[in-house]
């Protein structure tokens, strides 16, 4: 009796590990590998031609491609710039697609820092009712469907958007912001400034007040003490956040596609464009180069982040009350709060407003359109309710795959064994590979079919979409669970072992109940990621009925804004409700 149970239990973990690794291979490594091989393998022979072609094309690499043929352009391509009375020769370089992608990512990073740091200051140094809530809200943009944010920005800054409405009302000329770089940068800041605010605020709170006080007692002014003692302790966090922001902005897809179009295309958008034109070779070559770059950046990020991780029992400086006599400090903070409301609240509010505003005022026509279209849609058109149903279905399916996978990888990453670092890195790889690439890989590898063991294996678009969503979601489960697992006292586990519990029993009885809150949080994130996923879904759903709400929104944007905003609102509600439901389900059972 005992013997059988023991055998089953001792086999359970390795078995689960094998299943997880197989899933990862099928859903992620093989498809991505397919994209790579497409770029370096033509007609059964290895070749560097597609890569070299891209590298040497000024369209993609701008001045760098030209410099490969003629290095002198690097110092001849200068143009006089007039700065008041002085003329300065500045480089007049063509950036190319990659250069532009990096350039907009850099601008986005700077904007995110500019918008995020004051937020960190408010969160870390001021006390006000709802501070914890605001802090939790900084995690929200991270899981907000990117296409929904894009719709919000169009509703706010578009030709007939809220901003122009306000400008017209006060007698000012309209502005045209859509399809400009600033709007893309602002949308990226919408996503990443909260991230920078959160990581910096966390670092700020762990700065021991004693360090600044010591500097003061040694003769430094408050400003001097801040610069000399506090800022150096914040820099690593800011850099970490900046690196992440750069990576995210570099790989951003839906925002750029919707707000920039092809005229402001980034690498991601161009890959998508090539896929649409069925030019898979160029798409693969571009994707490969992009992946190499983003993997390098992610590696740098992980290395850097690992060095920062340190628990400290610091005594933080007391917070200042936010409400009180108005001084320069508070005035600046209130000014920032105003800006933050415009940037973070207006897009969502504008989307809600636009979805119920017609040419003649309040209307529910756009929602009615969604329902009518369900009945009247032609076969090539999107049925709105089907999109909702698909989104929920795929969300549930991805949840069912991503949660066990993520938990298992979290368990693996907190155990001591050889190759742990490798598991750690591999399990985070989807963070560094863009959704478009995963989608492209799944399309080529699984949807178009693959030859294995003498059979032709093809999967339907729906299955491929679920695979893509699960791949995008499980790192969030792992990231939510692993830190909690790591805090469990090793002797708690050992106590259970000495009392007779097997390795698996300890995991089920002792460890998982203690990290249940993390599992629930991870599940909520996973579901939200799936519901909002656009990058790979739009590729996999093209020409099939496996479309989701974000895909539906993108289809509508091109035609009429009203239905797109209405669909955006439905997406917002579904995302928010599922988040709350999952959170409520977890209530009381977690610690």
């Amino acid at each position, binding site marked *: 009796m005992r013997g059988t149970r023991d055998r089953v239990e001792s086999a359970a973990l390795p078995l689960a590990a094998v299943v997880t690794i197989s899933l990862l291979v099928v859903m992620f490594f093989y498809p991505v590998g397919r994209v790579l091989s497409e770029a370096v393998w033509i007609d059964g022979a290895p070749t560097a031609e597609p890569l070299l072609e891209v590298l040497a094309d000024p369209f993609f690499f701008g001045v760098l491609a030209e410099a490969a043929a003629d290095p002198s352009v690097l110092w001849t391509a200068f143009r006089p710039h007039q700065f008041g009375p002085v003329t300065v020769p500045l480089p007049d370089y063509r950036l190319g697609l990659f250069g532009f992608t990096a350039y907009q990512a850099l601008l986005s990073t700077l904007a995110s820092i500019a918008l995020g740091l004051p937020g960190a200051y408010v969160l870390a140094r001021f006390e006000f009712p709802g501070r914890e809530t605001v802090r939790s809200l900084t995690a929200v943009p991270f899981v907000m469907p990117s296409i929904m944010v894009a719709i919000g920005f169009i509703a706010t800054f578009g030709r007939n958007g809220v901003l122009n409405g306000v400008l017209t009302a006060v007698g000012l000329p309209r502005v045209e912001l859509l399809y400009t770089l600033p709007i893309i940068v602002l949308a990226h800041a919408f996503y990443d400034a909260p991230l920078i605010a959160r990581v910096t605020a966390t670092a700020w709170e762990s700065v021991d007040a004693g360090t600044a006080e010591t500097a003061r007692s040694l003769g430094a002014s408050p400003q001097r003490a801040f610069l000399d003692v506090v800022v150096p302790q914040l820099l690593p966090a800011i850099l970490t956040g900046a690196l992440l922001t750069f990576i995210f902005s570099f790989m951003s897809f839906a925002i750029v596609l919707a707000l920039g179009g092809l005229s402001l295309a980034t690498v991601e958008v161009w890959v998508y464009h090539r896929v649409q034109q069925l030019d898979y070779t160029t798409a693969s070559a571009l994707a490969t180069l992009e992946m190499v770059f983003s993997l390098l950046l992610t590696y740098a990020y992980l290395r850097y982040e690992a060095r920062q991780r340190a628990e400290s029992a610091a005594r933080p400086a007391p917070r200042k009350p936010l409400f009180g006599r108005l001084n320069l400090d508070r005035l600046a903070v209130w000014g920032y709060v105003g800006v933050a409301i415009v940037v973070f609240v207006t897009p969502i509010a504008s989307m809600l407003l636009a979805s119920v505003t017609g040419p003649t005022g309040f209307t529910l026509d756009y929602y009615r359109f969604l329902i009518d279209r369900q009945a009247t849609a032609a076969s090539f058109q999107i049925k709105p309710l089907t999109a909702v149903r698909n989104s929920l279905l795929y969300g549930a399916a991805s949840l069912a795959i991503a949660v066990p996978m993520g938990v298992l990888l979290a368990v693996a990453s907190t155990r001591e064994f050889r190759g742990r670092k490798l598991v750690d890195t591999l399990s985070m790889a989807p963070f560094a590979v863009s959704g478009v690439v995963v989608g492209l890989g799944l399309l080529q590898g699984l949807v178009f079919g693959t030859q294995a063991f003498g059979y032709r294996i093809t999967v339907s678009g729906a299955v491929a979409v679920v695979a893509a969503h699960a791949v995008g979601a499980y790192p969030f489960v792992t990231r939510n669970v692993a830190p909690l697992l790591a805090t469990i*006292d090793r*002797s*708690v586990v*050992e*106590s*259970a*072992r*000495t*009392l*007779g*519990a*097997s390795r698996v*029993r300890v995991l089920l*009885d*002792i460890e998982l*109940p*203690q990290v249940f809150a993390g599992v629930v949080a991870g599940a909520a994130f996973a579901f939200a990621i799936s519901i909002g996923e656009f990058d790979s879904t739009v590729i996999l759903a093209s020409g099939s009925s496996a479309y989701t709400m974000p895909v539906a929104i993108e289809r509508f944007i091109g035609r009429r804004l009203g239905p797109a905003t209405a669909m955006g609102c439905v997406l917002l509600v579904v995302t928010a409700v599922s988040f709350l439901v999952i959170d409520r389900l977890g209530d009381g059972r977690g*610690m």
Partner: protein
Amino acid sequence: MVRIELEGVQKAFGEAVALEGVSLTVEDGEFFTLVGPSGCGKTTTLRTIAGLSDPTAGTVRFDGEDVSDVPVEDRNVGVVFQSYALFPHMTVAENIRYGLRFSEPPRDLSADERVQELLELVDLAGMGDRDPDELSGGQQQRVALARALAPAPDVLLLDEPMSALDARLREQLRREIKRIQQELGVTTVYVTHDQEEALAVSDRLAVMADGAVEQVGTPVEVYEGPATEFVASFVGENNLFSGTVTGRDEEELVVDVAGGSSEDRTFRVADDGPTTYETGADVSFCVRPRDLSPEAGENRFPVTLGTAEYLGGTTRIYGEWAGREIVLRLPEPVSGDLTVGFEPGDATVL
């Protein structure tokens, strides 16, 4: 209950050697303590007995049976850790009951009855429904003890179980652990860095240093007859002297405590050690502070007194003689210079 034997147990963590050939026997029902400074290998030894640490070499036997390959969950040991290690998501009663999922309670008791019995044993009757974080540190440690004892383990292993508690609570709890251990007669191995605690609770103890056992014996044997310089200085306070044997008569050695200074002098010490010292041999001996007294008639030498610590009823005084630190225990604080001596029989040759 079992008799535990360790034979030539070695443990290396990569390059670092934690244990180099530890051999020990813990008798059935004995309260046995492993004591030594941090890093001496005492916890590794305990974890090896538990099966939480696999020895690089050597064997562990329970009642003569080699258990080296028996996994921890099948060794039937109860372990109490310094951090209590209670399961935070379970109540006190659920914590105690956990081990009963994997083995039958003793004496045909139901699991509930067994839990009640243990709650009473550790004086926590009625607290079964509390959550661990509602308890004080001392109470949590009792729960940890009850949890370890619930499946009636053959061996009870205690790893510095009281280091996190304050001094008064520590003394109270250690009396209680001792009482429970005697009541149950369970073979117990106790790890501590506190030599006073080791002397107070143990039937026998092993003093460890640098991954090896320095001496095994009863508290009296170890305190009164330290086998090595390390034991002499680690267990209780001691004054260490080393020199050359210049002569011997009857049961005493004459030792010239070297140093080359003008204050060289000879002491007469009782020759009761295991080694026979010939004239000219190097020898060390130690004298407890309480045995250095101004009244002693022999082996007198002048001490320059320094810091005095009044400890209530007795005073510890640090002094100096011939460049050596000398520790005295006198009834009252004294300052200035003082000539003290000791009886040859009070010196222990190492």
